[in-house]
């Protein structure tokens, strides 16, 4: 069931918590934002994290990884969520590592996975083409050309796209937008001719890019998995990224909730702490229940991935829907309860509101995952 942490896991949790509170508090993100940092995260800090084994946490030891599971990855990301750590976990540690492990040749694996584990290599998945998340709505074409293919199309919301060494591009070798069949994944160095990457400045001050592909020539070697069967590779990787993001969101919402409860105890109005007002108490208690439920489903969905349970996808969708919606509820209530000060950029709670909304809209929001949950449950 894995609904309680083992002693080793508790130790990991404490280690991560202490590290990020000291080295990557919310101030870290604020500073990157205010200095218009070109990278959008700290390469030095990323190296330090890699040295702690975090960049390769789910990679096998032969590739320099820690060989741990999603339960541990979840603990790591939950703690990173608490301080809004912007380093490239989702793009590289989860999506990149998973797709390369499952889809690349041994030589490619050897080269790239080591780089990931050492914090040298950053990858990005170039997938989404429109605002609303819809995994098979891919129009980017991969036309056969000589021995290889030519890629053309436009990708948006490519997480960490502007600093990635290579992109994993989802393109269509057959079929039409919306079809599950006919997708193919390509490993494309960012420097390739015809690739144009523009960083986009996002509300949550994190990294994202628009990628334009104009007749980008790729060889057969650059195909990950099988031609036309990219969805078989993509689906489980997206599930894993989704549960990882849910764990991060769990950290975001838990921290926002705890900060709000603390504020309710200390902010004085009408000569009493505002947390003594029953209406606010009840709203806080309602949030508490939602936070607890979020924690449970995230832990179980992580365990389901590790155990390879048949219903893992359902649990993942439940986790993303629940954490997305709870994070929205908690951060909106947080800003309201902080009052005017919560509206200022100076106060950190607003960063949580922004991150919660961005993460909600990443990899499918509550509505998307309820639909998927219903479908997987046969209605």
């Amino acid at each position: 069931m894995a609904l309680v942490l083992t002693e080793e896991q508790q130790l990991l949790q404490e280690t991560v918590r202490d590290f990020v509170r000291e080295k990557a508090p919310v101030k870290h993100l604020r500073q990157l934002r205010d200095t218009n940092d070109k990278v959008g995260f700290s390469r030095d800090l990323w190296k330090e994290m890699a040295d702690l084994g975090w960049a390769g946490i789910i990679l096998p030891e032969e590739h320099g990884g820690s060989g741990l599971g999603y339960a541990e990855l979840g603990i790591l990301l939950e703690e990173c969520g608490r301080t809004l750590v912007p380093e490239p976990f989702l793009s590289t540690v989860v999506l990149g590592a998973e797709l390369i492990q499952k889809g690349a040749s041994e030589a490619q694996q050897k080269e790239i996975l080591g780089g990931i584990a050492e914090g040298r290599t950053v990858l990005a998945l170039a997938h989404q083409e429109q605002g609303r998340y819809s995994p098979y709505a891919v129009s980017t074409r991969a036309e056969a050309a000589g021995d290889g293919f030519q890629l053309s199309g436009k990708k948006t919301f490519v997480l960490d796209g502007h600093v990635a060494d290579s992109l994993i591009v989802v393109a269509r070798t057959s079929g039409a937008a919306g079809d599950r069949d006919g997708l193919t994944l390509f490993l494309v160095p960012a420097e390739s001719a015809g690739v144009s990457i523009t960083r986009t400045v996002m509300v949550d001050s994190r990294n994202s890019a628009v990628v334009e592909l104009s007749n980008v020539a790729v060889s057969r070697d650059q195909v990950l998995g099988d031609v036309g069967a990219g969805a078989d590779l993509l689906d489980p990787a997206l599930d894993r990224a989704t549960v990882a993001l849910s764990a991060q969101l769990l950290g975001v919402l838990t921290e926002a909730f705890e900060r709000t409860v603390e504020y309710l105890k200390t902010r004085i109005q009408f000569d009493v702490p505002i947390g003594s007002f029953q209406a606010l108490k009840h709203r806080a208690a309602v949030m508490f229940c939602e936070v607890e439920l979020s924690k449970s489903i995230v832990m179980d969905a992580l365990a389901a991935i590790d155990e390879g349970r048949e219903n893992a996808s359902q649990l993942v969708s439940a986790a993303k829907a629940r954490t997305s919606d709870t994070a929205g509820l908690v951060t909106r209530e947080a800003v309201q309860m902080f009052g005017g000060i919560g509206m200022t950029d100076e106060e950190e709670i607003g960063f949580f509101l922004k991150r919660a909304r961005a993460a909600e809209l990443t990899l499918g929001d509550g509505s998307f995952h309820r639909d998927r949950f219903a479908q997987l449950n046969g209605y």
Partner: protein
Amino acid sequence: MSATTDLDEFRSEVRTWLEENLPETLRGRAWPSGSDLALWRQRMGDRGFACPTWPAEYGGGGLDAAHTRVLQQEMARVGAPPSVRGFGVSMLGPVLLEFANDAQKREHLPGIIYGRVNWCQGYSEPGAGSDLASLQTRAVREGDEYVINGQKIWTSGATEADWMFCLVRTDPRAPKHDGISFILFDLKSPGVEVRPIRLISGASSFCEVFFKDVHAKASNLIGVENAGWTIAKRLLQHERTMLSGGMGGGTAPGRAAAGRAAQRRNGFADMAKKYLGDADGRIADPVLRDQLAQLELDGLCYRLTTLRSAASAKAGQGPGHTASMFKLYASEMNKRRQELTMSVLGSQGLGWEGEAFDAFERGTTRQWLRSKGNSIEGGTSEVQLNVIAKRVLGLPD
């Protein structure tokens, strides 16, 4: 001998015992009755399996949590029903074990263990709902008896009950929490009148109970006179646990509950397809489908949370304040479920009686109405929210 070996031995012992002692007619029957039930009660009581965790000296099994779990697993395996249930075993018993004196335990626990005495709970009064401590039923000491006058309401099962455990005011001048006592008496005593309550959903097991000069033996006062509030609160915790359902006894019953819930869920989706139509395997109304998915998803998260709570709690610990969360969430969720069912059924959910509505439809109407009481009985949702805010979150008064 290792712990595992010990448990394995116990398991085979239980298995054999069940094979020899479970009356065949009771197998798989959730709510047994008749002479075989009497036999089953006698055997389970004698063997100490009726109340396995209670001390052996009072007729319990004296088992620890691990052995109890084995017993429950083996009983579930062969479909053996519990031999006793109700207020006695789940609420009064634990309280007697904690607060009663030796003579009181010897007098009352066997009646519970062998299912000989049906208990009911005399708590709420018309003017004392959420503010239970404002209760007015008076008990005046006269010699070795108390004389009781007043009224209780929401007494579940009073028409079937033999005895009542009852909160009474023994000191009307003390601050309201300091003048309450916890007393037991025979419901057949002269001066007791029981009137069933009709609910908005129809007939119910709830009653009003009136007391006019009812005499109760002073030796049946539990704990110290005027210190009954402590007992009352502990008993409410047990009630909350019971009402939130299935999160009490470790993972095994939790899993079983999860299985039942899953079955109920699929039933809901099928029912929704039947009434709303099926569009390529999906419920044809996308908005209700979204609401159903939200409800099922919440139910899943809720059940996982009860399992997580049980896994976190060390065996033998009493229910913590999370009981408030479970009580709150379970009752609000059931209300949502019933509302959603009504929306799905449309006018077919509006039937009260008669053949134009099938049994499921008629049941839906009643259950919808009955569910409104979930967030009132056993501590209103507002009370649970207060408890969470204060005890769990530490928000100031």
